[in-house]
């Protein structure tokens, strides 16, 4: 065990963790919007809208994240027409390609989590609102959404942790995130065990934080 290498690589890896956190937070924010939108589309009664939303979540939950990020980064880069459009400004950058792939992926999972949360709301709660003469719009925003968010917290916490680990795939499209920098250090020292132990420790610490924040929120919003 080369402890000196572990100590020396720690600040470099910590620095790279910033990129990991940026990727994670951007993807989660976009993903939450996508997820909420598609969850609402999923519970829509119109069969075309609801099949479309189902198709999206089916495709993105049914294929590996690595394949998705490769299709968006290397695949779209091969289409000559696309390179002459304004879209290329975004798709040229590995950073945005990674965020697009991560957002679409976590969005699909989030939409399923929220959909099942909406569907577990007891009809009696909505009926109680209706009997008080509250409009269905207000029932949706003030009753259904808050309950759905509380219901989905445990599952969503899991999704955040999965996504956090998923960001390590950003290193496959040249980004220098935590895993990318770990691989870089290994490429000059040839000592994978030491460096990956430190990187793994940082991932574990992030999981610890996320896990506890979610636990705190669950307790706070318990009813």
């Amino acid at each position: 065990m080369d402890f000196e290498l572990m100590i020396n690589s720690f600040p470099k890896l910590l620095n790279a963790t910033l990129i990991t956190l940026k990727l994670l937070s951007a993807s989660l924010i976009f993903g939450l919007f996508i997820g909420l939108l598609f969850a609402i589309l999923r519970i829509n009664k119109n069969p075309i809208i609801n099949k479309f939303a189902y198709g999206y979540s089916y495709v993105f939950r049914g294929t590996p994240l690595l394949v998705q990020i490769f299709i968006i980064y290397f695949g779209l880069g091969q289409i000559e027409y696309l390179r002459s459009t304004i879209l290329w400004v975004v798709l040229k950058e590995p950073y945005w390609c990674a965020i697009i792939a991560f957002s679409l992926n976590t969005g699909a999972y989030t939409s399923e989590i929220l959909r099942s949360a909406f569907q577990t709301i007891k009809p009696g709660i909505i009926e109680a609102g209706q009997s008080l003469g509250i409009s269905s719009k207000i029932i949706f925003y003030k009753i259904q959404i808050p309950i759905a968010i509380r219901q989905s917290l445990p599952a969503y916490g899991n999704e955040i942790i999965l996504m956090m680990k998923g960001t390590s795939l950003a290193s496959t499209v040249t980004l220098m995130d935590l895993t990318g920098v770990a691989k870089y250090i290994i490429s000059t020292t040839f000592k994978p065990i030491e460096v990956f132990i430190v990187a793994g420790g940082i991932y574990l610490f992030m999981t610890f934080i996320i896990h506890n924040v979610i636990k705190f929120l669950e307790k706070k919003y318990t009813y």
Partner: protein
Amino acid sequence: MNIIKKFSLGVLITLFLSFSANADKIKIGTEGTYPPWNSKDASGKLIGFEVELAWTLCRYIGQQCEIVEQDWDGMIPALIMRKFDAIMAGMSITAERQKAISFSQGYADEVASLAVMKGSDLESMDTPAGINLTKPNTAAKKALKTLTAALAGKTVCVQTATIHQNFLDSGDVGKVNVRTYKTQDEVNLDLASGRCDAALAAAVAFSDYAEKSGKPVVLVGPTFSGGAFGNGVGVGIRKDDTELLNAFNKAIDKARKNGDISRIATKWFGFDASM
């Protein structure tokens, strides 16, 4: 319970048999994605200069061999962890790598070169045909200056953990935006898509790609050798494995004398890259 016992016994026997069958074979690790050094044909079989040379060297050593695949970025760690006994993967002999493993004498040499897509403004660089960085002369120093100016702020793509990455990281051509990829294939893809302003690798890797893909990839600037680019390509072997190192050195001597190395090199490279 009985079933579990029988099953684990079966697993143990299989493991034992597979170990004992491989005990006296030399395992050689290669990458399989770096043509013409080593690559795979359509059926997934390993082919290339080093694959053919490996079989020849094993014949001279007089021992059975097995060629195994390993991702480039884990090549040296895998050797150290005894996943195989020797590396033949277009790996240049450099001082940095020699801190971790030993190398046999070199069996072939390659020059590195920058490549761009046709129409790039880097095509107009005025540099000598080739520079050696071991003891750079005035012409070489001038060429490095020209490159520094031309590459400023540009994105240059390389495969990770290569001599090409080391060279760009060394600062000899100033501060360029280095992007690293797991395989040379991915470097080629992003060079063609326009994400890279230029790429740096073995000159043959680009000419091979241009020929097979039909993409307008052109070599620019000088060819590089020496210095960070190492002293030829050799067989990588664990430091404590001197017996195997001697065996490979002797086999390379014999293969060179009989003209095997230059024959195989000419077949795969189109010119004699042996040394």
